[in-house]
């Protein structure tokens, strides 16, 4: 990659981190507490996504 594009991308990512920081801070401090079963309702679909990606990897290897 062109060094100037690399530097431009790095500066843009730093800017994005600066822009994202207040939202991240807000959600870290003010996120509602999870109720019983809430995290399970997240982990199951995410585990299915992981399994699906593993399946796609198997497809592409054969």
């Amino acid at each position, binding site marked *: 990659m062109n060094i100037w594009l690399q530097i431009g991308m790095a500066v843009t990512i730093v800017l994005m981190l600066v822009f994202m920081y207040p939202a991240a801070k807000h959600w870290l401090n003010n996120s509602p507490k999870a109720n019983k079963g*809430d995290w399970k309702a997240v982990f199951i679909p995410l585990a299915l*996504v992981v399994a699906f990606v593993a399946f796609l990897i198997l497809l*592409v290897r054969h």
Partner: protein
Amino acid sequence: MNTAFEKTVSRSSQQAFATNKVIKNTYLLLSATLVFSGLMAMLSLYLAVPLWTYTASLIVAMLLGMFVLPRTAESSAGLGVIFAITGLMGFGLGAVISLYLQLPNGPQTVALALGGTGIIFLGLSGYALSSRRDFSFMGGFIFAGMMVMMVAVLANLFLQIPAFQLAIAAGFILVMSGFILFQTSQMIHGGETNYIHATYGLYLSIFNIFISLLQILGIFGDD
């Protein structure tokens, strides 16, 4: 007493109407931006643009997303901006797709990444819409995860370690999948009332999942 009851019913029906309108407009705009993005990708494939176009388009799109979109999202100008962002990202994507198409199993890899992204997005969005669960408790986790991923991308921009790139791609798929659940639930429960912002968030998650899947399948599919 009857009037108070009527007011409550009227308020909640208005709220439900507004929520449904945000969801409907978001999915309509998302479909339109995805089609436009696909057309721009085809144009860049046809023009055989060099790979640096991807980075350049991404930088301009990210700057538009940070500085212009927040100022225009409440007006009709926001529609033009969201199409400019997604069009640019699609145009850049064409350069990456053309690179993958030259690999031995390239067309299969691109098709699997495209289909896989569609299935992941539709599955997660459908799950969040049908379960109507409030995933706002994930907010801190999602934003912290995104920031960690951005720092990792920044580091690997200079380190260029392939194994680290693979880990970043896997991490992005997980964080963006969580973000789809979070954003969809925000639309359902009134946390997100602007359909242009909602479309931008969902488009970015779809784009990142597609690019990450392309990298993972490209690495594993190459002998």
